């Protein structure tokens, strides 16, 4: 079976007599939680059955004048597509976490302005791997062992000992950096990007001279390089064009790719579906027919512009800055989620749904763009797809 604990979407997980094999501790915790959680549907403070909770959600959506859908990054593609259809039918807003994290990178990839590759290609061919502002040891625990540094790949049979070079650029010594052959601690990501561009062009940079020369020398020696950009890079960049310039320069030196380090298992799936539907990745208003940062979920909350929110598989009460999260409680909140969360504490309607990969089968698009299919392991709970379909048919 598959683990949907992070964007690695590990497909070698085995469940045997309640024991989880091969997953990391984060994956084990998710799979065990899926088996043991008893979460009750709620409508306006009363415990109800699932169908009644769905009816209540439908009524709230039908009565809404300014409706938004948020989350969706942990549910399969079919559920995401139905949510997009609901947003369209209601002329509502739709957004996911990518507007605050990896969307800016995914957009460059979908528009083919940045060259990307698959994790299997990295496993088989990469001899230079750079994590920039990412700590997979903690965020994607099996990324390093399954895809980048430790595996024996088709053309990298000598693995990390001889065939692979791992470098980390970060503001600190992370756990991942302790595994690397080179760590470069930077205060200012853009300054270091500029230094690398300068060295790649044969110029002397104004900062980070030794580190930039060492890294560029390594990249020149490599046959297949890849940079994994995490949230540290995302928030260290005010201009995506600078990263694009660097990647262009590195491609003049060797074959070089970029993969975002998104955490959510199907964030890219949502981005690709919305892109196929309206040509935009996130923060979309079906009423206005455009994407704009003012239609991001956080902006809509800030301006108190929505009266009803359908949240699917996300916990924005915990994950957004307090000033914004605190506004969620001012709207009607309908939550679809497998487990209790901080958002479920303030939601008007709570509909427990199955964990993707355990109670729900389907497809997801991994952060590198590869489509991953998976079967449901057990079929006892209602799925996000079922609930969303019921809503979509009723409105």
């Amino acid at each position, binding site marked *: 079976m598959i683990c949907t604990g992070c964007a690695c979407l590990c497909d070698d997980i085995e469940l045997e007599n309640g024991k989880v094999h091969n997953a990391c501790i984060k994956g084990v915790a998710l799979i065990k939680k899926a088996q043991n959680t008893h979460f009750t549907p709620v409508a306006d403070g009363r415990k109800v059955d699932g169908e009644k909770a769905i009816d209540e959600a439908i009524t709230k959506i039908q009565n809404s004048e300014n409706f938004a859908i948020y989350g969706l990054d942990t549910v399969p593609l079919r559920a995401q597509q139905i949510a997009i259809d609901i947003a369209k039918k209601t002329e509502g807003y739709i957004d996911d976490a990518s507007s605050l994290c990896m969307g800016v990178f995914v957009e460059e990839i979908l528009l083919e302005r940045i060259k990307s590759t698959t994790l299997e290609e990295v496993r088989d061919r990469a001899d230079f791997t750079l994590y920039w502002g990412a700590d997979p040891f903690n965020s994607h625990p099996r990324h390093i062992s399954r895809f980048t540094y430790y595996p024996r790949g088709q053309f990298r049979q000598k693995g990390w000992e001889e065939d692979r070079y791992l470098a980390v650029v970060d503001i*600190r010594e992370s756990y991942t950096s302790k595994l690397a052959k080179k760590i470069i601690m930077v205060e200012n990501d853009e300054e270091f990007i500029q230094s690398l561009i300068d060295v790649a062009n044969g110029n002397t940079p104004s900062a980070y001279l030794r580190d930039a020369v060492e890294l560029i020398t390594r990249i020149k020696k490599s046959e297949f390089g890849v940079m994994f950009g995490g949230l540290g890079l995302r928030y260290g960049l005010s201009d995506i064009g600078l990263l694009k310039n660097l990647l262009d320069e590195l491609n003049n030196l060797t074959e070089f790719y970029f993969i975002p380090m998104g955490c959510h298992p199907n964030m890219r799936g949502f981005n690709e579906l919305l892109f196929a539907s309206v040509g935009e990745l996130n923060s979309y208003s079906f009423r206005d027919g455009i994407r704009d940062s003012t239609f991001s979920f956080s902006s809509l909350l800030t301006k108190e512009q929505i009266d009803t929110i359908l949240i699917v598989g996300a916990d924005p009460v*915990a994950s957004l*800055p307090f000033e914004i999260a605190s506004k969620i409680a001012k709207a009607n909140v309908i939550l679809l989620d497998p487990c209790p969360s*901080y958002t479920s504490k303030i939601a008007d309607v709570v509909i427990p749904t199955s964990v993707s990969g355990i109670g729900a089968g389907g497809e997801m698009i991994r952060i590198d763009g590869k489509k991953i299919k998976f079967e449901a392991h057990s079929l006892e709970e209602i799925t996000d797809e079922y609930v969303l379909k019921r809503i979509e048919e009723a409105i």
Partner: protein
Amino acid sequence: MIVTRDVFHSEVRETDKESDSYIELSATLYMREEDMKKFDLGDGDVVEITSTANNNSLRVSVKNSNEAPPGKAMMVNSILVNQLVSIENLKRFKAKIKKVGGNVTRPEDIMAKFERK
């Protein structure tokens, strides 16, 4: 200050968000030893952090860690640290710290501030 992820925190977040270990990992401020000395802090001291981004405060327990960036402090991403960040920069912000003693802030203290419609 910077905001990071921690796999053990992710594990307990999946298991039990009300558990003591979740609260302990969420309400910890990691600093390097040399930086703790500058503020006359020891392991387990409770400090009040006030964000210059929004003036919100939290009480957290200090812990020595070499994974913290030099001259800075670090917290794991959770409902607690999200009291202090702004939407413009979810991962780095400036804050003041002051040794106060007492108990750390708990998620329920934050939930109590949510005003219902």
